[in-house]
């Protein structure tokens, strides 16, 4: 168990996907600044697409759930671990970064 900074909320989600990308080097987009976030994609074993969110903006679990559910509908990935470091980005920016990350995955 890692030491969490006080004030950071950790959220975890898991989706069953269909599209398994081939082996890939980790993808990193975005930057952790106010109103921004960084998103990393790494290969993982198993059929799931897991998402772990570490965010300084606490209490928005429901919105993260909806945003990530819609993301996974757009890109039903399997065997991918998504890691997010967020500093209060709006859902619009989150969706944009996730789509950017997948775009880099497909066109490295």
């Amino acid at each position, binding site marked *: 168990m890692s030491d969490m900074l006080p004030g950071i909320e950790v959220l975890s989600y898991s989706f069953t996907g269909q599209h398994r990308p081939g082996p890939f080097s980790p993808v990193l987009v975005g930057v952790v600044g106010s109103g921004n976030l960084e998103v990393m994609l790494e290969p993982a074993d198993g059929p799931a697409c897991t998402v772990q969110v570490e965010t300084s*903006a606490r209490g928005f679990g429901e919105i993260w759930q*909806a945003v990530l559910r819609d993301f996974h509908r757009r890109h039903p990935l399997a065997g991918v671990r998504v890691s997010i470091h967020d500093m209060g980005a709006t859902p619009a*920016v989150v969706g944009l970064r996730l789509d950017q990350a997948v775009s880099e995955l497909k066109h490295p």
Partner: protein
Amino acid sequence: MNAPTEPRAWGHRAADRAHRHARAAAELGSALSGKVVAATHAVALLNAVLEAGDRVCLEGNNQKQADFLAQALVQVDPQRVHDLHMVQSVLALPEHLDVFENGLAKRLDFSFSGPQGARLAKLVSAGQIEIGAIHTYLELFARYFIDLTPKLALVAAQAADAEGNLYTGPNTEDTPAIVEATAFSGGIVIAQVNELVDGRSTHLPRVDVPAGWVDFVIAAPRPNFIEPLFTRDPAQLSAIQVLMAMMAIRGIYAEYGVQRLNHGIGFDTAAIELLLPTYGESLGLKGKICKHWALNPHPTLIPAIEAGWVESVHSFGSELGMENYIRARSDVFFTGADGSLRSNRAFCQAAGHYACDLFIGSTLQMDLQGNSSTATLDRISGFGGAPNMGADARGRRHASPAWLKAGEQARAGRAGAAGTPRGQKLVVQMVETFREHMQPAFVETLDAWTLQRQSGMALPPIMIYGEDVTHVLTEEGIANLLLCRNDEEREQAIRGVAGYTTVGLQRDTRAVENLRDRGVIRRAADLGIDPRDATRNLLAARSMRDLVRASGGLYDPPRRFRNW
């Protein structure tokens, strides 16, 4: 038998004006020379000409303020002068509310109070101010000629000569409307000026207000206060704002062929201005949209002007730092023979109402009928020009393609009076679904309703009515309310672009999909826009320095914007 009635005397206004002038002359003595009053005697002048119960217009414009006269007014003796009725466009300075706390003024009619909104709310709930009404600018000017005529106008001008002619220059703004109403109803006009010309070595560049309309002139010790309200640093624009601007250009400006428009203040519209020479150019739209503007001289319009998009701009006021650029672009801006800008808020508001096909602006909150408001709890901020610009102009009779197309969409399938063929102005509300601190822009009930209860207003302070809104544009897409046939469709169309706000998450998914199929909701993809293309690289200028460079060095930003 009835006593014979006295014949009515009809010279009250003239007699009253003469009495006030006589008092001023007696009070000031040698401090009054013709019309010129020494600055040291400003308070004495006001004590002499004012009477209890007077209606006073203290020039609080959106940009310029008669600040020296405001500072003098708060020093007037409240034992003699009290129960003043203040009528002014904007409450900008602390003195504008000090007159109420000092017991000088009791009643207020105004349009906008942005900087003083919180303090105004406190004074209202403490019973120290009675608000007559909150207006839109043109509406307030109109009432100066009907039932809110000022007895005294305290205005700000750039320069005066000894006769009392005034040069108001680039920041002419509201002055002509205020002075005309006051001067031609027996009122008294007092002007503070930055400079008194002697008529020998210095002259007025032109006459904006003739001497015959002016009673007293005071050379203020400091230039009058002016704010650069319309300057936006392109460095602060985000990719999301670029995306929304792309949707505005493609989904609305190009779609309807909008040649004549007004942009409300803010970063969202600044992004549109900066995308015309780049994204707009890539779509081949130059010459097809955005030729004629009712707009303050936005620095962010410089690249579009330089690229040949803009034929004309009429302005409400000026913008600090733009003076030399405007001089060098007299083909585009309204300038005098002297070369400097002539602005006029009353005429520009009329132009925006009748001669423009589109208004687009931001808001803080919108409900499910499309009503929008910038009123928030504990702040009475007012409306400014938005209600006038963002309203269908039902008196309009001349046609344009954009106006006809919008009108056809609204009336298709309607019968009776509501279906009588007419055009409609495009009124676009452009807003990100979440504001700062993840405050949702879309709500079930506007704060305006609570504000109504708290302050006892007759109506909730709604800035733009849903019935006038034709399009709602968010980062999620465009909802075309013209194509909605009933309140249920309108509600789902708004929910459909409200994203992940509670209001958005509670959408009827099937209904929203149906609306998208019908083209009532259009997402970025439906407009041929890939959100990943929406980057800051698309902006024609990305910094204040870029704007200066685009202007060939003519634009001179105020110091607070010099960040390079």
